[in-house]
């Protein structure tokens, strides 16, 4: 396994649990996202699904300066606000997809665009999806038309540990940094089961079995533990002598004491990422289909002291729904994919409803698809119907959480978006009807209060550079 050590002036290690919450994690590739200036907006007299579990009839939503100002009945329009008649419309938080490969497996799917799986080694926590994210993927625009305002772009599942994922706001930009969700933690992509062992086993390498998979995760985390110890020791100052000295992680002189630092440990990109996961700064997202393998990964997480944010795909999550809920682990699931491989054989159409059912259940409808991301609302509608048929009556105000609040929670951005509550980012969708219908259209999509998609206004529909001059766009 190659472990390139590229000298970078700033380490990204400052995001320890003790860091001041207001200060974003030090990031050598920082977000340059700026909300697009927009007038205040009052949406009047709509059916509002707040994402907190409430459904408000005949209600208004006010947004200003990029934030939700108020949600309720009979609200006053701020000075200069654009007023939108919401009669007959439904308003929801912007949809969040916790599992996307837009930009790293973009359209067109040509060989030069296959940037999602660094399958040169089974353990590559050193790679970051964001460094392959092509902002001109036309799929971002079509996802926006489906109401998607934020998403996590993940590396693929060819590796045991595939690298870092990045959360972006769904805005058109020339650089990914200008899409990067300010302050959102990174994700760490891991994968169970068939994919890693097929990719490497078929080359006669390791892993070629599920035994090899688990040994691979453990070896990587054991190495990272040693790395973490050396940093912890260095940072606590207990290096050559017993006198504790304060040091920063990047080995500069401590500003307060003025003490000269000892040589810091050599940086290792792969171990930095795993250390970030163990310290809770990086959210762990695990591609895992089978219930028995999810249980193994929960034990792995305990062995190395990290928390699993969500199991992705989780075709068998329904078999372990109570445990997932008890441990606060989300299930990021498809509505109905099954049968394409052995570990997907036991798919049921009630998976989402069953994972949602226990107290504290955290069900997420995810896409993993440039088509699916455009209609996550329809995927949820299918799951509501199957839940209903199985005796689980799931109301729209609850189901909307699968697409908004729950993915926000898994991504660690629930303090910023995912619900319509005052102070949150004004990521808002106006639908022509209940969103849980095949005939539903997102009519207007706001990101941080700016109208970035309007179904009725071509001047408010983004077109990627790629689509220009092809004589095909309507």
């Amino acid at each position: 396994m190659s472990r390139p050590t590229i000298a970078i002036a700033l380490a990204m290690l400052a995001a320890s649990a003790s860091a001041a919450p207001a200060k974003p994690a030090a990031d050598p590739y920082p977000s340059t996202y700026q909300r697009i200036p927009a007038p205040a907006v009052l949406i009047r007299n709509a059916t509002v699904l707040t994402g907190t579990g409430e459904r408000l009839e005949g209600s208004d939503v006010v947004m200003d300066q990029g934030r939700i100002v108020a949600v309720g009945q009979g609200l006053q329009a701020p000075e200069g606000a654009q007023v939108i008649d919401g009669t007959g419309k439904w308003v929801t938080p912007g949809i969040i997809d916790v599992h996307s490969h837009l930009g790293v497996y973009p359209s067109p799917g040509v060989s030069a665009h296959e940037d999602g799986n660094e399958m040169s080694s089974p353990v590559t926590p050193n790679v970051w999806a964001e460094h392959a994210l092509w902002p001109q993927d036309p799929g971002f625009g079509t996802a926006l038309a489906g109401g998607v305002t934020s998403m996590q772009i993940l590396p693929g599942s060819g590796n045991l540990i595939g690298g870092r994922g990045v959360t972006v706001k769904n805005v058109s930009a020339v650089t990914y940094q200008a899409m990067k969700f300010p302050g959102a933690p990174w994700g760490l992509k891991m994968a169970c089961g068939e994919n890693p062992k097929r990719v490497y086993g078929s080359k006669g390498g390791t892993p070629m079995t599920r035994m090899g998979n688990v040994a691979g995760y453990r070896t990587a985390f054991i190495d990272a533990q040693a790395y973490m110890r050396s940093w912890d020791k260095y940072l606590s100052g207990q290096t050559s002598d017993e006198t504790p000295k304060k040091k920063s992680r990047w080995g500069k002189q401590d500003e307060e004491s003025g003490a000269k630092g000892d040589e810091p440990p050599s940086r290792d990109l792969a171990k930095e990422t795993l250390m970030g996961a163990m310290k809770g700064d990086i959210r762990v997202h695990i591609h895992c289909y089978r219930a028995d393998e999810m249980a193994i990964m929960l034990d792995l997480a305990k062995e190395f002291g990290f928390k699993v944010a969500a199991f992705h795909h989780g075709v068998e999550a329904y078999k372990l729904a109570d445990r997932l809920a008890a441990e606060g682990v989300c299930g990021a699931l498809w509505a109905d994919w099954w049968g394409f491989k052995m570990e997907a054989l036991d798919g049921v159409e009630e998976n989402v409803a069953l994972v949602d059912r226990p107290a504290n259940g955290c069900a997420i409808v995810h896409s993993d698809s440039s088509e699916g991301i455009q209609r996550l609302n329809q995927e949820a509608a299918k799951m509501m119907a199957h839940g209903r048929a199985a005796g689980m009556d799931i109301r729209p105000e609850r189901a909307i959480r699968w697409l908004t609040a729950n993915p926000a929670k898994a991504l660690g951005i629930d303090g910023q978006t995912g619900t319509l509550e005052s102070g949150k980012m004004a990521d808002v969708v106006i639908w022509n009807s209940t969103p849980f219908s095949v005939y539903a259209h997102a009519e207007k999509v706001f990101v941080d209060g700016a109208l970035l998609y309007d179904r009725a206004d071509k001047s408010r529909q983004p077109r990627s550079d790629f689509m220009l001059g092809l004589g095909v766009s309507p």
Partner: protein
Amino acid sequence: MKRLVLSLLLVAGSATAQDVLIRNATVHTAGSRGTIKNADVLVQRGIIRSVGPKLLTPPGVKVFDANGKSLTPGLFAGFSDIGLEEVSAEKSTVDSSIELAGTGVPQTRPEFDVTIAYNPASMVIPVARMGGLTFTALTANSGGSLIAGQGGVVRLDGDPSAAMTGTRLLFVNLGAGADGMTGGSRAGQYMLLDQAVREARGQAPYASPYVLLTPAGRETLARYLAGGRVVFSVDRAADIRQLLSFCRKHGLPVLITGGAEAWKVATELKAANATVFLDALQNLPSGFDQLGSRLDNAALLVRSGVKVALVSPDSTHNARKIRQAAGNAVANGLSWEDGLASITRVPAQALGVGDKVGRIEVGMEADLALWDGDPLEVSTLAEAVWMHGTSMPLRSRQTQLRDRYLQDPGTLPRAYSR
């Protein structure tokens, strides 16, 4: 008068499991009568005998009250490997392609016929049927071949007799997807196709070192050239134009699957009396052949008079997604009736089974689905499915798994539940 005749006929034979009177349905015929409210459908011996209001109940025929709900013809499951594969990634369970020449080596075996491998006991079939799907076109998709082999239409009733008579289909891949099989250029595809046609017509000696076809392959291709159905997989507008010219030259009917840019050549397609089987959810340029993909492809084609059928965006295991695709086509400009027709009548007619399935009309197979809401709506589920008039159990491996995990476990592990 008609009723009287029917009643007399019935006296002769006793009611069977294939007899049912479905009362008081909203009957979406997918045929010339459109939608008929408060209508009854009489089925005897598996065949639709009468459709209309207030039909008499022949003696012994069981009555099913539809309570005004929507009744449609059983739906088309698209081009699929239903019954040809159990688990897509497990080669030992997949029979829809051959690699006799070696992995990735081009081969031209039109005589390869996947319908022989059809397994009516496949676990995929009950799952499809629960989604209201009752017929599919088995598809040969030999990855290493321009001419991928033959398939045919099957009804998803578990009957072992496989393909319906007279529905053999030959599958041909064109465009970028077939480049690797034809020397890297799509021009090579027509070169090789023309050569295969010449061989089939006996214009090339068997002894030539360059022959593409076996003697059996020549016979097979000759049969299709004499009046068979060839399904061409093609997306790019320029390629569709070439195909139209190829079909004109050889007198072939135009059946296209893919057709991402078909809307651009709608006039030519209409003139050729073509049927386009398209993915109504395709709106992204998945490759350079699909740059013109758009959600209103179906609507634009139908407006131009082109016959449009749908394929499932997610074939075989999730073939049921075809209904969602139809709903989306309607949400993007297709009329509701045309949406239903695109997954019932139109594919049935294009594939040569339009006189048996795809419409609720007298004389047709009683392959029917009853829905708990708008049949094209994603939140709607099938409440009942009949095939050949027999009520099919809405039970699959998936529902059994669901039922096992829906309940709290008892003292014994769940493996003891039935």
